[in-house]
């Protein structure tokens, strides 16, 4: 189906988005289809909106762009929501490093909708109470 890869933009408060991208790149290597927009605490909405718009254009290959934001209800998500467009831009909130890794390593054939579902699922599945995982017998 989609020959072009789905692009992605991490959008967050402060420097979280940049640092998540740097962490993922340290592990996986250069990630050309992912951009990061860190919205400063005092940036105005128009400037933030323009920064997201530029980032979407920079990663778009015609197969849609997934925006992953830090927290539902926060300004980065609310501004990102202005870009929602069926089949073109989707948003998944609560970004964590495994979600960025999932985006970075997704198969080229997946559509925007499929990737959004996979990333949402990965994010939820990647949270573990580690003691219970490493020593199941002891955890209560």
């Amino acid at each position, binding site marked *: 189906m989609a020959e072009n890869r789905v692009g992605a933009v991490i959008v967050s408060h402060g420097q979280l988005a940049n640092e998540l991208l740097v962490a993922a790149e*340290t*592990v*996986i290597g250069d990630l050309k289809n992912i951009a990061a927009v860190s919205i400063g605490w005092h940036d105005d909405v128009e400037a933030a909106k323009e920064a997201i718009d530029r980032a979407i254009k920079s990663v778009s290959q015609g197969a849609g762009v997934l925006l992953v934001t830090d927290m539902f209800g926060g300004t980065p998500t609310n501004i990102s929501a202005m870009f929602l467009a069926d089949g073109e831009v989707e948003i998944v909130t609560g970004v964590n490093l495994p979600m960025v*890794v999932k985006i970075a*390593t997704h198969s080229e054939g997946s559509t925007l909708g499929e990737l959004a579902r996979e990333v949402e699922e*990965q994010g939820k599945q*990647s949270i573990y109470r580690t003691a219970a995982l*490493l020593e199941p017998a002891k955890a209560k």
Partner: protein
Amino acid sequence: MVEGTVKVVNFLGLHARAAGQLVRLAGNFRSRIILEREDGRAEADGRSMLSLLMLAASKDTVLKISVEGDDETEAFEAVVSLLENGFGEK
């Protein structure tokens, strides 16, 4: 299919950057590469970093490696060598 076991020797175990190296290596081969904890508690696909991390393979963990495909011998040797060399770490 080629199978064998290898012990994780580097101090940090199979951590994120190490798993990243393994995924990049696996991408050079066509064979399917499966790693499993010797105690059977987890199994991972050599191409999936997130599944490799779930092996929770710390130093001295023994992993069973199974490789199947037309370049299985080369792939198996490359994976074993990467692990035996501790991913280039101490």
